[in-house]
Every structure is written in C-alpha cells, then in structure tokens.
C-alpha cells in the first residue's frame, strides 16, 4: 500500500474534524439562541444567570466565542461538566474504554454470526436454505438495536432468566476494580476469572443487541459478494483447472468477496458505535453512550459537546481503519 494514500487519508481527516467542531459550535451555541436557557435550573436568579454567562464566556461576541472555543479544543480542554463538576476530558476518558470494549465484543459477535449466515446462504445457493438465510437477515435488520435491547429485557423478565443480568457492567458481589477501564482484558490478564465471567455475562445482551443488525448486514453483503464472485469468469477458469468446490469458494471467491464486505462492514460499524447511546442507557451500562443521554437530560452543555466530539473522532478513526484494510485487501490498491 502506498504511503501517500495513507497520508492523504490522514490529511483529509483534518478538515473533517474542523468541520465537525464548527457544526458542534453552531449547534450548541448559535442555534438555541440563548444557550443559557438550556443551562439554568428552576429558581435561578438574574445574578446566577449573569454569573453563568460570564463563566462560559457567553458575554463575548459569537466570533470571539468561536476563537476561544477552537483554542480550548486544540489544547484538549473540553471544559468542566456542569452536572458532575468534573473535567469533561477526564470523565470521557474514564468511560471510553467501557464503550470500546462493548463495541469490539459486539463486532466479533456480528462478524462471527454474519459470516456464518453468509457462508450457509452461499452454500445453499438457489435452495430453500438461502431463502431462509435471506429472510432471517431481512427480519433481523428491520429491528433496530434499541428494540432488540428492549426485547431482550422483556424476554429475561417474562421468562425470569435471573442468571442473565440486564443492568450494569459487573456484579455487585464481585470485588474487582480494574486499574484501566478495559475490565474484560484486564480481568483475563490478571486471571480473575470470576470478574471476567461477570463482566462477560453483563456484556452479552447489550453486545448482542448492538451486533444483530450488523450481523444481518455482514450476512447480506458477504453472501451477495460471494454469489457475485461465483458468476465471474475466473471461477469458470477455476472449474476448468479442476479445483474442488470447497477450494473454489474458499480460495478463489471468498478473497474477492471480502473487499466489498470489509468496506461496508466498516461503515456500518460506525452505526454500531452510535447505537451504544441508547443500548447502554437501556442496560444501564456505564459507557459514554449512557453518559451522553444523561448529559442531554441534564442539559450539560460542555459534556454534550465533549461527547459528540469524542464520537466524531471515533467515527473518523474507524473510517480510516476501513480505508487502510481495504487498501491492504485489494491488490489494485496495493500497487500503483
């Protein structure tokens, strides 16, 4: 892969980030007219309002506010959370590992499940098996992650499955406080299998809720791509060469089918990350998504701002990774 390509993608991320920052500013400071109206609780006095105004620099002109805003962002200063009275950056960084771990588990589930569905569908091509896979994928896809989450909760409640936790990230009875936020990895490394089991159990349902729609997409795209690849002339050539069917699907078709799948899966992965906002809320899972909803409910402007920007950086990073893996998979991109 050419380095200029990578460099180009990195450079392009800069104006995108800047654009994101501008839009966040416009959204939170300009659109509401008076952002303070969002901030004040009931019973605030005129003096309180003026104090807040000064505190957030809202007594300056919009242009000047924008300059200060950019300056603060560039310095990594996201301000102080109003509801938690803590540095936004610290808050976000504390919760970020939780969401990342959840997303990665969900991703693994989605790729495993979707891949299996796709291979099954391709194997039963043109038979009722393929129709079943298509139908299942279409059904799963029609139900968004937050409804899956609610359905799971309903399921657990109705069938009284007390073994499956539907709230929190680790059992109250498990004494384990990680040094990092990556509890799954850390507990495994420190051989605290009880903690690992508890975290995994708490993660299963939210991860599955997030994973199902993506799994359906992986299944669809991969199956279509394999079927598409199987109609190509080089597959005919492979048959003439006398290769076995398993080898043709595995070595000749799958490799070519992976390229579009990785691209689409990557884009869809950003939707999965976005889905954590509601799913974490529903399962009271202590990640940044959960925090975001609370921030909106509490009208915690600096925290909202910090979280939206964090999500944006995550998305841009994911897209960058997708581009790189695309380039690595596609020989056309690797050379020239």
């Amino acid at each position, binding site marked *: 892969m050419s380095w200029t390509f990578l460099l180009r993608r990195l450079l392009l991320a800069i104006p995108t980030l800047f654009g994101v920052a501008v839009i966040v500013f416009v959204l939170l400071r300009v659109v509401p007219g008076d952002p303070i109206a969002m901030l004040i609780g009931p019973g605030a006095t005129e003096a309180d309002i003026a104090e807040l105004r000064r505190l957030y620099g809202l007594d300056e002109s919009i242009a000047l506010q924008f300059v200060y805003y950019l300056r603060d962002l560039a310095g990594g200063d996201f301000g102080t959370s109003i509801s938690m009275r803590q540095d936004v950056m610290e808050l976000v960084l504390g919760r970020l590992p939780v969401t990342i771990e959840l997303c990665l588990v969900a991703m693994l589930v989605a790729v495993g499940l979707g891949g299996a569905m796709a291979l099954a569908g391709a194997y039963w091509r*043109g038979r009722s098996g393929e129709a079943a896979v298509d139908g299942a994928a279409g059904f799963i896809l029609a139900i968004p992650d937050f409804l899956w989450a609610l359905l799971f909760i309903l399921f657990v409640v109705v069938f009284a499955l007390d073994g499956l936790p539907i709230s929190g990230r680790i059992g109250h009875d498990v004494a384990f406080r990680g040094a990092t936020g990556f509890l799954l990895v850390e507990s495994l490394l420190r051989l605290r299998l009880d903690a690992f089991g508890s975290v995994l159990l708490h993660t299963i349902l939210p991860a599955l809720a997030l994973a199902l729609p993506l799994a359906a997409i992986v299944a669809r795209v991969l199956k279509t791509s394999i079927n598409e690849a199987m109609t*190509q*002339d*080089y597959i*005919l*050539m*492979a*048959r*003439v*060469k*006398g*290769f*076995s*069917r398993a080898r043709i699907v595995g070595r*000749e078709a799958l*490799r*070519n089918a992976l390229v579009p799948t990785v691209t689409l899966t990557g884009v869809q992965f950003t939707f999965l990350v976005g889905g954590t906002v509601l799913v974490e809320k529903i399962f009271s899972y202590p990640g940044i998504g959960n925090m975001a909803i609370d921030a909106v409910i509490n009208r915690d402007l600096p925290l909202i701002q910090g979280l939206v920007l964090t999500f944006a950086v995550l998305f841009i990073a994911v897209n960058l990774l997708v581009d790189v893996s695309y380039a690595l998979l596609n*020989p*056309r991109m690797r*050379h*020239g």
Partner: protein
Amino acid sequence: MTATPPAVGPTLSVRDLHLAIAGRRRDTPILRGVSLDIAPGEVHGLVGESGAGKTMIGKAVLGIQPSRARIAAGSVLFDGRDITHLPERERRRLMGRGMGLIPQDPMTSLNPAHRIGAQIADVLRLHLGLDRAAAGARTLELLNEVHIRAPERVVRQYPHELSGGMRQRVSIAIAFACRPKLIVADEPTTALDVTVQRQVLALIKRMQAQEDASILFVTHDLGVVAKICDRVTVLHGGRVLETGATRRIVEAPGHDYTRALIAATPRHDRPGGLLRPVPEALTARLDAEALAYDAARGSHG
C-alpha cells in the same frame, strides 16, 4: 492440412448433442443435434453469429455449462470415453491434463486477488503433483514459452498490472500447462486489438503444434478461421449447417448461409460498397427450419 484418415479415433467426438435452457414455462433449445469430430492435433473452427450456440458447445464439452442448461440427448466422447454425465470428481481429474480452456476475456478470467505465478503454479501442483519449487520453475518456463519478457517479474504481478495481450498469454500458459490433449479456445482474440490478435494467434498455433494438442476454436470471425483452422463447422440456431476442410468451406461453401456470411464480411483489400448483407429471407428460412426441427422432435420425443 489435408487430413489423412486418422489411425486412432478422434480426440473429441460430439454426437447428436441436444441442450436446452430450462425456463419457467418451457425449455429453450440452444443446441439441436450437434455432431462433430476433432482428430488428434487438429484445429477445428466453430463459426456462427451470436445465438448460434457455439460457445455453449465449448462449455458443454468442458462440463461448465450453466446450471440451468440441460443436456437433453446426445453425448460428448473424449478419447473414446463418454464424458457427458461424468461425476464431478472424475471430471475434475480430467481437467488440466485432459482439457484446457483459453477464455474470451482475459480481463475477467484471471483471479484479481492472486498473483500470476500462483495462478499458473496451482494447476501444476494439483495435476502434476509438482512441489512448490518445481512448479515455480516450470511456471517461469511456461511464461518464457508464451514469449513473456522478464517472467521473473511477471510471476509476482497481479492481473490488473498486465496489458490485455499479456493476460491472454498467461491464459494460454495456464491452458497448456499440463499438456492437455484438447483445448477449447472460446473467442480467444475477440477482446484484443488486431496487432495483438495476430501475435496471440501465432502463439496459440505454435503451442498447439509443439504440444500436438487438438483445439476447438470458437469464433465469429471467418478471417481468423481461414488462418488458423484445419477444419470448420458452421453453426446457426444450434444446428450444424456444414462441416469440412477450411479451404473447401471458405472457397466453395456448400451452404447458402456460409456463402452469405462470406459475402457480408468486409475486406480491406477490396474497394468499398460491395458488401451484401445476409438476406433476411435466408435467416427467416433457417429459423423456420429450426422450429420445424423442434416440432418434429417434440412430436416423437
């Protein structure tokens, strides 16, 4: 050129082959009782316009016809052995060492995900049981034989890095890799520029002579047929109109359609304005004959 009666039997013998594409309501006949023989070392041309079924014959011989195509009657004999309904496993063994294919479009028939070297070596390892090193060495030899310069470089390249002519050379190398007795060449030069076409034709002819292989050469181009084929079969509507030595077909065609096709072929060595299109009455007559054939078959089939 003039074939002395072969001492051994034909390499390929197609006997009264009927093939139809299964449709929702009824089957569409594609081949209507095609018969042809190809002697060892013979280059046999199969000419016709689109829809004549010439490509389908090639596919049926190789056993790679589309899944909806049904061989209704007739047989394909390879080296005297009936391979019409050969089980998958046995057919795979026949490929490579028995038969090879030079495809029409070198752009799409090489796998874009694999290096050129691997695409040739894989066949050698599968059918000849060569180890990695031996297959690599033979691959270089093959590329040399098809006149690819700097083969050491080419084996490490991907198909998209080669020109159309180079890719077709690679396809030829793959087809001849295991010294098959029969090669199906499916319009191998149609996608190429005319100067490259001449090189590729020369290469196919040379490899064929060197390996003493038989070739079923599918094409729509009478010029190409005249230059490379020993014998020719003219096809229309899935029926054989005539078959014979190339010189006889080209210089004294026995069928009206062949004659019309030759008259409709433009030539740069003659002044303009002399083309005569194939008369519509003739094509209409041929279509009617095909339908009558179907009806006759249907009535006692």
